[in-house]
């Protein structure tokens, strides 16, 4: 759960890993998502899952980087990402319309690539500071004196409600149950 955006962005540029390919002591370099198209392809999967028309490519690409970074955590997950990308290329995912892409993503549910992308996006895309700005979330506030003078109560499309408890609350809570036992279920 430890998320440092800067950390995963910077190390995501190291797109190569040492992968054990089943042969004891035999190491091989495996190149994962080393081409820019791969990064774009992953970003388009993220966009198909979590479509926000008004989001530019940046946050989606950064999420793709996080996906790659996570996949590089083990040879097995790197392999899963690589095979997932090959399959997406084979079906022409990059040419699909929004609804086709969503339908295809649905058909991928349960696959390792789906879990990898979904899990990373939930914690990656929505922690991105550009996304926070786009969504209108102002975030950290203590150093600015909180929101007490910055709109915590600026909603004006509804009447001002009561904040005190209703005078009959104590009586209501003390009155006891409406009736005794429930029918045994």
């Amino acid at each position: 759960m430890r998320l440092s955006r800067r950390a995963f962005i910077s190390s995501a540029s190291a797109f190569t890993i040492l992968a054990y390919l089943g042969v004891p002591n035999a190491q091989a370099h495996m190149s994962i998502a080393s081409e820019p198209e791969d990064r774009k392809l992953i970003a388009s999967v993220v966009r198909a899952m979590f479509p926000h028309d008004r989001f530019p490519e940046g946050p989606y690409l950064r999420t793709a980087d996080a996906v790659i970074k996570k996949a590089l955590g083990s040879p097995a997950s790197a392999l899963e990402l690589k095979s997932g990308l090959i399959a997406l290329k084979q079906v022409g995912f990059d040419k699909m319309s929004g609804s086709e892409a969503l339908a295809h993503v649905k058909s991928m549910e349960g696959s390792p690539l789906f879990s990898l992308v979904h899990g990373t996006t939930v914690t990656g895309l929505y922690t991105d500071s550009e996304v926070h700005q786009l969504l209108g979330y102002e975030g950290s506030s203590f150093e600015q004196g909180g929101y007490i003078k910055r709109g915590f109560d600026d909603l004006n499309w509804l009447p001002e409600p009561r904040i005190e408890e209703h005078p009959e609350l104590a009586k209501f809570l003390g009155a006891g149950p409406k009736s005794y036992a429930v029918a045994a279920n």
Partner: protein
Amino acid sequence: MKKINKNEEAVVVIGSGAGGGTMVYELTKAGIPCVCLEAGAFIKPEEYVNDEWPSFSQMAWLDKRTTSGNWRVAKDFPGLPTWLVKAVGGTTTHWAGATPRFLDYEFKTLSTYGEIAGASLLDWPISLTDMESYYTKAEDAIGSTHRGGRAPLPANNNYKVFANGAEKVGYKFYATGPYGTNAEAYDGRPGSIQDGFNFQGDKNLSKWNTAVREIPRALETGLLDLRPESHVVKITHDPSGRADAVLYVDKDGNLHRQAAKVVCLAGNSIESPRLLLMSDSNRFPNGLANGSDQVGRNYMRHMTGSMYARFEKPVNFYRGETMAGFIADEVIHDPNRGFAGGYYMETLALGPAFLAAFLDPGGYGPEFTAIMDNYENVAGMWLVGEDMPQSSNRITLSAETDQWGLPAPNVHFDDHPNDVAMREYAYEKAEALYNAVGALQTYRTPPYPSTHNLGTCRMSANPEDGVVDQWGRSHEVRNLFVSDGSVMTTGAAANPTLTIVALAIRQAEYLAGELKKGKV
């Protein structure tokens, strides 16, 4: 700070959260020296961060845990069944502040609701009358708004939507509290600046937690030996079956022994039973204090769910106190609704990071992003009600191990049909409320990792039915006390912390008396 010799038989408190923090303050105030062993570090308010995941990784309890059962948390968060904190102050660092009292009949649910199939309901050995003066003391300690002459918090944006919806559907009992955050300066701490980060520890100190009140004050008495980063792994006993020491691991993995004349266990409802189960011996083969086989059973986590709604106009619900909004109209037991017990509705706001993680785990697609995309126009509430204790909902020792190589706790939970019926009903009512003020879309959010963890060392009149007596004193090991949320016989609809604190104040008073009489 006081140094207590490890060979001196001390009063040892395990954990420094709502229960443990209150215990050490009340005991040292009464002149009784204590050792407090806390697994987490002493993180000071200036180190708290206004950012959801970084704060979570700073303080949440992330040691190995496993899950089972049909609850959705086991599927969505299999390694993270609970949201608890490992730090001085325990989970009160991350708590919000809702402080309702239990209702009279919520201490006697078996005789009020009757037998319910599959539920292990039991009446508490104490009543609201026994608790009343302690509730007042706990409210004064926490500084609950709307109580003791303390001012209510103002309405924030999320509350405005919530309270107007309440009024429209005919609810009467809404207010911005009772809530454990100062509206005005109180008890040496300032009024709220509405910074919106209750769940991340309040840097402004307006929110009560034991790391900003009880622990510093206990240290000031000069009688507290506080040892952070000290993870207790076993309670040992002498040949007569009395607890005589605790063994703990420091941050470097070294094992220490602290001799004890009294042990107060307050590790919360997962770790307390786990520690008792790990403290088995020839004499206590089922785990310490577990002759009744009730340790770890009857685990409760409250019926919960959340409702988010999207509106045409801005709400900006993240600004201001996270949970300062209450509706009590649904709390009264009314079997005509198709379930036993009741529930509260409480305002809830999350930042985009947590909202995305909790809105609908596993969810995606346009309905999901419609909520996220209109984040500024979203309002939210939490539904929290009484869940049925079940004997088979329990904490056991898993085959998997934690960072010390010790058995991790497994948290098993099956929803009871009563919990499911209540949740369904509560969702409908919450939707009606938001629709009454013009919601364009509502979203039913399932329970997230348990923040309320109760019942696993329950209090009972009869030793066969539970683990501790009406004082929280083990039926079986008479110098062992349980001082946290695990003593709850049943959970009521109320958020639990006020009751945990009130019970700890009561227990400390009793224990101080027994110590003075030489009866422990």
